[in-house]
């Protein structure tokens, strides 16, 4: 992109109540419909009254489909209205990044909830046979978004390492029990086989369909990338990324957040065909204005990537998605200008949110995104 500091988001946006309930097949309350009307007007959705009429109908497959389309349209409009250059559809067609893929793929079975922390849990699946591709899981959503967006789309795509790390590996551990006696080695080799079968049989076929349908930028989401920070595991992560994206006529990037960047930085240069690393920094940073390492503490790991010789682009997290605090444009500007001093080549910086905005309300998200855009504009002006 020619312009300095293009603005982008990472993927998810909260699902409105009306989207969740109507997709479940429930009737909506007056308030929920009013909420849809309010945002429709605010975002200037064409014919939104006609669309909102669907919400009042009884449950049917047609209504469910319409609800997905409507909320994706709203999300796209919100991103456009905020002035973002690069975005997707708020992942409105997906339940969640892990389950969405695993439920649509053969070879997995959900075993139930396991603890994440405190009273929070996640549904964990076991791989019980070789993963097989059943049907497209992102394609339709992408095609719809493409028809309805006026700017560049970046398709979030859950990465192989994360899916594998979040899944019990019964099939391969059992399979390798015959030949590998050492338990540790067996588990690792089972993980390898699992990850590459998943890439070959499921992920690459989906990427091919996306690329054939016109996807030009796919973002591989790997929140689990540094969970196992040994060299052996990090090499597996890199190999898996490279294998996933290999040979496609499409731009790829990697998103990773709330992780150990000292570990990731060491391997950043080994990622092939990865045009951008989008990283979370705002969450680690202070809210004071200013440029320089004494105020911009959250950005100190940028230096690590530079020192390892990483020379591709950054999706620079300048908006914290874990707080309702609305970053003023001046704070966004200073975060960008600080990074510009570290990175030198200004064209390598894309101003971004830390991660998906799914935990924030639409009101908060919209304001944060507007300030992201105006903060990037302030940064551009400051450098004129």
């Amino acid at each position: 992109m020619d312009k300095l500091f293009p603005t982008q988001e990472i993927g998810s946006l909260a699902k409105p109540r009306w989207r969740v309930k109507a997709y479940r097949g429930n009737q909506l309350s007056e308030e929920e419909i009013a909420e849809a009307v309010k945002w429709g007007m605010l975002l200037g959705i064409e014919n939104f009254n006609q669309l909102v009429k669907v919400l009042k109908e009884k449950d049917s497959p047609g209504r469910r489909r319409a609800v997905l389309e409507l909320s994706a349209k709203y999300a796209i409009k919100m991103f456009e209205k905020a002035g973002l250059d690069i975005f997707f559809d708020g992942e409105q067609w997906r339940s969640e990044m892990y389950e969405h893929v695993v439920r649509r793929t053969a070879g997995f079975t959900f075993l139930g909830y396991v603890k994440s922390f405190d009273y929070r849990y996640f549904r964990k699946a076991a791989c019980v046979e070789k993963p097989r591709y059943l049907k497209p899981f992102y394609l339709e959503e992408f095609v719809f978004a493409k028809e309805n967006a006026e700017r560049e789309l970046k398709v979030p795509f859950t990465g192989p390492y994360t899916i594998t790390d979040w899944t019990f590996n019964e099939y391969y551990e059992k399979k390798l029990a015959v030949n590998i006696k050492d338990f540790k080695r067996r588990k690792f080799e089972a993980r390898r086989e699992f990850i590459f079968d998943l890439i070959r049989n499921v992920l690459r076929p989906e990427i091919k369909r996306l690329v054939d349908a016109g996807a030009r930028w796919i973002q591989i989401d790997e929140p689990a990338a540094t969970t196992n920070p040994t060299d052996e595991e990090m090499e597996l992560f890199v190999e898996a990324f490279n294998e996933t994206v290999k040979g496609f006529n499409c731009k790829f990037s990697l998103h990773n957040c709330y992780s150990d960047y000292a570990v990731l930085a060491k391997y950043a240069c080994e990622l092939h065909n990865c045009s951008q690393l989008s990283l979370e920094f705002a969450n680690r940073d202070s809210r004071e204005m200013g440029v320089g390492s004494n105020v911009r503490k959250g950005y100190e790991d940028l230096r690590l990537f530079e020192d390892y010789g990483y020379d591709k682009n950054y999706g620079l997290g300048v908006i914290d998605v874990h707080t309702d605090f609305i970053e003023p444009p001046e704070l966004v500007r200073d975060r960008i200008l600080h990074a510009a001093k570290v990175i030198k080549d200004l064209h390598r910086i894309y101003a971004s949110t830390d991660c998906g905005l799914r935990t924030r309300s639409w009101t908060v998200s919209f304001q944060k995104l507007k300030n992201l855009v105006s903060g990037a504009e302030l940064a551009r002006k400051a450098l004129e």
Partner: protein
Amino acid sequence: MIGCYVTGILPRPSELIEKTRAYERKRISEEELEKSFAETAETVIKTQVSKGLTYITDGMLQWQDLLRPFAEGLKGVKVGSLARWFNNNMFYRKPIIVDAVERERDIIKDITYLDKLPRDHPWKAVLPAPYTFMSLSENRYYKDETELLFKLAEIINEEIKSLAEAGFKYVQLSDPALVYKPLKPKMEKDRLNLVCDALKVAVKGVPVKVCLQTFFGDFSEILPNALDFPVDDLGIDFYETNIEKLKAYSFEKGVSLGLVDSRSSLVENEEELVKTAKEVIEAVYPSKTRDVFISPNCDLEFLPWKRAEEKIRVISEVAKKLGGILHG
């Protein structure tokens, strides 16, 4: 003796999970949640008793993480933000040491369902080992980590004594940080000596058996020093430990063999575990066999309860078969 037991926090069965979720959403009261915890403790205790486990725990179902009871219950410690629990997709809250640490009351005893534990079976309690507690905390008060380590060792010592008084016969000190070293080189001998000295403080004068349970890392890396630690038994994670290196040493302590993998849902083949256990026992006890416990490698909380239940059955079966073989 060939025995078996669980090694930490058990998973909450699905009905209890639903209650905790309902509580989070303010749909049920604290009393209702507490009632559910107490009833479920009874269930998981029954499972352990019916499978013939040597020592019984209360399941630790309400523990949010290994350190939380201490982060919440000790004076001078605050509950910090979320941090990754080793290499797992699970998180704990970092204890922040903000002031002189003081133990004003019995911590573990007060949160354990003592009245649900069986009168006719010996009980086991689980605590963090001083080194792991220190490593996972943020020290904002003591002059260095050594000072904090020994302070925590004193606290653990008082806790073990209170548990012994309450009737516990066996205490496990969980020490994953001692062996989890994905990036760092092997622990220096001086540091291991420090760990040993802190353990001496922790177990001084306690009238119970103590096991130092290591997991998430290779136990053979802390050999031979660990053989001199002031504990009765040593716990080993067989999904992380190089067995061949281990077999080069002879032990004069008991062992807890973490042969069941709490981080995999695949139910182990009992015959294979019996064979591996036998191989290890014959190697590390060339002359005299000590106490051997068949156990999960770490807390079973990584699994859904149904699977954990099957794994409890496996440790029990393996212990039985092994006992049959070794004792003729």
